[in-house]
Every structure is written in C-alpha cells, then in structure tokens.
C-alpha cells in the first residue's frame, strides 16, 4: 500500500525543515555577523576567539633545549639536512657570546620556544600584534590583502593571518555559502603564514634555519574545566636547505590575568 503525506501536512512541515537547514548552515558560516547588506566585519570584529592579553610559557617539553643552554652538538628531534649539520657543528659558544647579534634564536620560527611572556593586542582592526618580553621582540600579523613592503628579510619576517572557522560535514566538499544573518562564530583558530625570514637558529646551540625558511602556525584556545585557558600554537617550519622535512612542534601558553611577571630582557645568545 502506498503511503502519502497530505499536501497540507507537507505545507506545514516544509518551512520547519528549511528553517532547520538554514540554522544548521548559518551556525558555521564564514564571515558571519554583519548587518544584512552591510560591509563584512573587520578581522577584529569577526574574531571567533580572543587571543589578546598576557600569556606565559609553561615549559613542560624540550626543557633542556629551552630553559637552559643545550649541549653543543645536541640536535635530538630536529630533522636536519647534512648541510644544516655542517653549519651547526661549527657553532662555538664563546663566539656566540661575543657576537654583536645575540638575537639569532629569537626569530619567528623559534621565538615562541623561548620561555617568557607574550602580550597580544590589536594594533588596529586589521592587525594583531604580539610582543614578547624575552628578547623584546614584536611580531605583527596582517589580515586581509596585505602586501609586504619591499626590503630585506627580517628576524620576524612578514606574517599574513586569517581566521579559520569550524564547518560541518565533509571537509572535502566546498563550504556552504556564508549567511549574513547568522550569529558570529564562537570557535575557530588563527592561521599565520610567515615568509621573508632572515636565517637564524632553531635552537641556541646553532641548529640553523636559512633565509629560505617559511613558517606556518595555528593558534588554538582550549578552556579547561578548572578555568585555565591555554593557547596552543602548532608551528611548522619548512626549510629546503636545512630541514629534510617540515619541523613541527606545538607550544603551549597559559592565560595570565595581568601583566604580573612581565620582564622585558634583551636577546641573549646563551640564555
């Protein structure tokens, strides 16, 4: 026997089903939250997570490579090429102490591994700024179609940022179209791509990265049941000259309620 839904029933049901589909899609639309028909929100306004504030390194990993000077020749874990090994083997502690450039291990690929505090703020609606007390360094993350100015490579390079938002369903399929009426997303990550880097050290004992290195980072926030807020930064350094595969580490920071402990110190080749 064939069963039929009456036309009246279908008419009642259809709006419910369509509305449900709209809500589900809208929850995850990218760039959501603007007024209907208005300009899209700025990256600051559209931020799905709040990275601003003070953060402290919690050094539970690679302790003897980060909290103290590692041994000369200790390259555990770094997928170095023979060329990198050759360079690293010439590293000399006394020469480094005497060098006018004490900041080689404070470049973008290794900066977050230096124990210290971060202060993250919005420089403007399109630019997120990170200051570190260790080494007194500043990194600047540009959203949108920012073009790096011409000039030499720098220790912190040029960083382009974008928000990555959660999306439902099959990640192999294109995302659904953004819904301007959807509420702003409350989950997501910051993705930062950094190029134009001046060569430096991945570790203070001379493990090098070259001027050809690029950096990709993901910043995620995790809230624990005891109230702790963690920022986890996954860092991938690629360097065809000195790394035989991308060097991948994840560094964690705990949110601080204030600037207590903020202690700006100059770069040090040994400490």
């Amino acid at each position, binding site marked *: 026997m064939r069963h039929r*839904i009456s036309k009246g029933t279908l008419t*009642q*049901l259809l709006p*419910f089903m369509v509305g449900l589909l709209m809500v589900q899609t809208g929850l995850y639309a990218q760039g959501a939250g603007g007024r209907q028909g208005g300009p899209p929100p700025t990256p600051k306004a559209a931020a799905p997570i709040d990275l601003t504030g003070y953060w402290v390194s919690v050094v539970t990993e690679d302790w003897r490579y980060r909290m103290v000077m590692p041994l000369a020749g200790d390259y555990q874990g770094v997928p170095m090429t023979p060329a990198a090994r050759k360079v690293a083997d010439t590293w000399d502690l006394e020469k480094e102490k005497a060098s006018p450039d004490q900041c080689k291990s404070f470049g973008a690929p290794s900066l977050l591994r230096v124990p210290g505090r971060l202060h993250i703020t919005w420089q403007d609606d399109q630019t997120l700024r990170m200051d570190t007390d260790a080494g007194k360094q500043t990194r600047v993350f540009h959203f949108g179609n920012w073009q790096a100015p011409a000039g030499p490579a720098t220790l912190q390079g040029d960083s382009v940022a974008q928000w990555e938002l959660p999306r439902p369903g099959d990640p192999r399929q294109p995302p659904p179209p953004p819904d301007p009426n959807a509420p702003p997303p409350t989950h997501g990550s910051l993705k930062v791509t950094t190029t134009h880097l001046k060569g430096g050290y991945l570790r203070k004992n001379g493990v090098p990265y070259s001027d050809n290195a690029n950096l990709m980072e993901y910043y995620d926030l995790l809230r624990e049941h005891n109230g702790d807020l963690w920022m986890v930064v996954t860092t991938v350094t690629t360097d065809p000259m000195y790394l035989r595969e991308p060097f991948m580490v994840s560094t964690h920071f705990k949110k601080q309620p204030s600037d207590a402990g903020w202690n700006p110190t100059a770069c040090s080749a040994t400490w």
Partner: protein
Amino acid sequence: MTCWTAAAAFGLVLCGAMTSRAADPDYGGLDVVRVRPNFYMIAGAGGNIGVQIGSDGVVLVGAGSEAASDKVLTALRTLTPLPVRYIIDINADADFVGGNAKLAKAGQTIFTNLLGNTALAATMTNGLAAAILGHDSILQKMSAPTGKATAYPAEAWPTEAYFQKRKAIRMSDEGIEVLYQPAAHSGADSFAFFRGSDVVVAGDILDTTRFPVIDIANGGSVQGEIDALNKLIELAVAPIPFIYKGVGTYVIPGHGRLCEQMDVVDYRDMMVVVKDVVEDLIKQGKNLEQIQAAHPALPYENQYGSKTGPWTTNAFIEAVYKSLTGKK
C-alpha cells in the same frame, strides 16, 4: 503521517545519539558494582561485601556493619529474590561481621530438613538462618569464655568454624575456597576465592583507601600482611597474554574500588618499600618518634595516609615499627 508524528520523528533523529536509560535501581543508597554476571560487590555498607548469586541461592562474603544491614537487604532484594544461604566471614572486624545476625536471619539455611526434623534444624541453625562460615580465630574473637561478656550476640557468631588453613565448599556449581592468612591485618584474616567466577574477596588485607591496618594487639604483623598480599598476587591471574582483553581475576578489597592483580602488586610494593625504609632507620638506631618524623612512607602518604581519624600514617608506622622490633 500527521504533522506531529513527523515532528516527533525528527526529534528522535536529532536526539538519537543519546542512549535511553531506565532509572537506576534502588540499592538502598549503597554502591553495587557488577563484577561478573553472577557476582557483585556492595560498597558503602562498612567493609565491601562480595555477593555470589546462583541456583543454590546467595553467598555473601562479609556482612558489612550492623547499621547498614537494612540497606544491604534492600540492595540484595533488588539483585535477586533468592535467599542468602551462606555468609563467609573473612575477618572479625565490626564493619565486616556487624551485619552477620540480621543478614543471616533474613536468609535461609541449607539445612531445612535435618533427618525430617524441622525443629532440630531450627535449633541447630539459629532458627533456620543462613550459615555463617569463618575461621576459628574469628569465632574466638567474637565469642568469649563462659561467664564473660561477648563482643557479639551468639546469633552473629560463625556457625561453621574451621581450623584448617583451607576450607572449601561448592555453591551454585562453583568451588569456593576460604584460605586463612595468619598474622596479616590481624590474626583472623582469610581470603574467599570463587574459582568459577574468578573473584577473590580479600577483606582488609587489601584496602585501597588507606595504609593497611596492622592490628598488632590482635595478631597482625607486617610480614604476615606482605605474605598475604603475595598469596593474593598468586591467586589472582592477570589478563596475560592478551592484556587488553578484560582485567583477569577480580579482587574485592576490604574498602575501596574493585581491583585486579596489578592493584594488589602496587599495594604489596608499597608495603615492602615502607617496611624496608623503616627497617633501615631502625638499623641506624632511630627510635619510633625519629622514624615517624623521617616520613618513611612519604611516597605513599598522599594516597593512603591520614593525619586524623582512626588509622593515621603515624599509627601505621608505629605498627610497622612494633612488628619489626617485636615491641608491643
């Protein structure tokens, strides 16, 4: 299909991931942990109680405290309508034998028909109450010489006391060994090993909530406690070689969570380490106060120790000290 039916169907789809669950059974406020399909542990009634349920009825190991007996009966009735046939006592502590009388009375002896003489059966079984089996040392502690006051009324005493190191019965087609452990937690400890269920009820020889109570005054000793733990390790079989399949023999401690062999090894190791440290301090000529001040059980104090209550860390160290020095 009506509109409401469709909406209800969608509701089920949306919430379908949640497993529907019936209301939790009433265990009288106690925690009843299913150990095997036919075996349970009742926690919260004083000492942990082992419960075997089968065609011959219920066998309890331990009876909990007197105050918790009603709750235990509620829990048992939720598990099965079958009567308690045996209570096996594995030590003489109040939180293990306090419920003897009430639980036995609520049960039913297997000797319902003694040569056709029901009256005789009633006389010999405390009014057709369930039997209470226990080592003679337990009977000695619970009873008293004629004319003296007893710690417990007669109906709480073991009705089947034995002197051997091992007593065995078979209930519900399962062999049950009651194995006396001399001079351990006290002078009256046993294990009850259910061979088919692969469960050992250990009493206070194993107590995951505190350092073992070594009742020196009543025959306990640190070496006896270690020997008993070693015996328990032997009895319990770990899930080797397929270590990820199940947990092997279950061990019901006197207090605390359900255990298995590795938990007993952890506890035994703790005893050996503390004993060794105290022994070393004794060799150095330290007295009890000096030894207590040295915190010989420091690695374990946070897990098992206490500064207050009936059994403190210092009391435990004192027991170990006295056991090793022979001082009373």
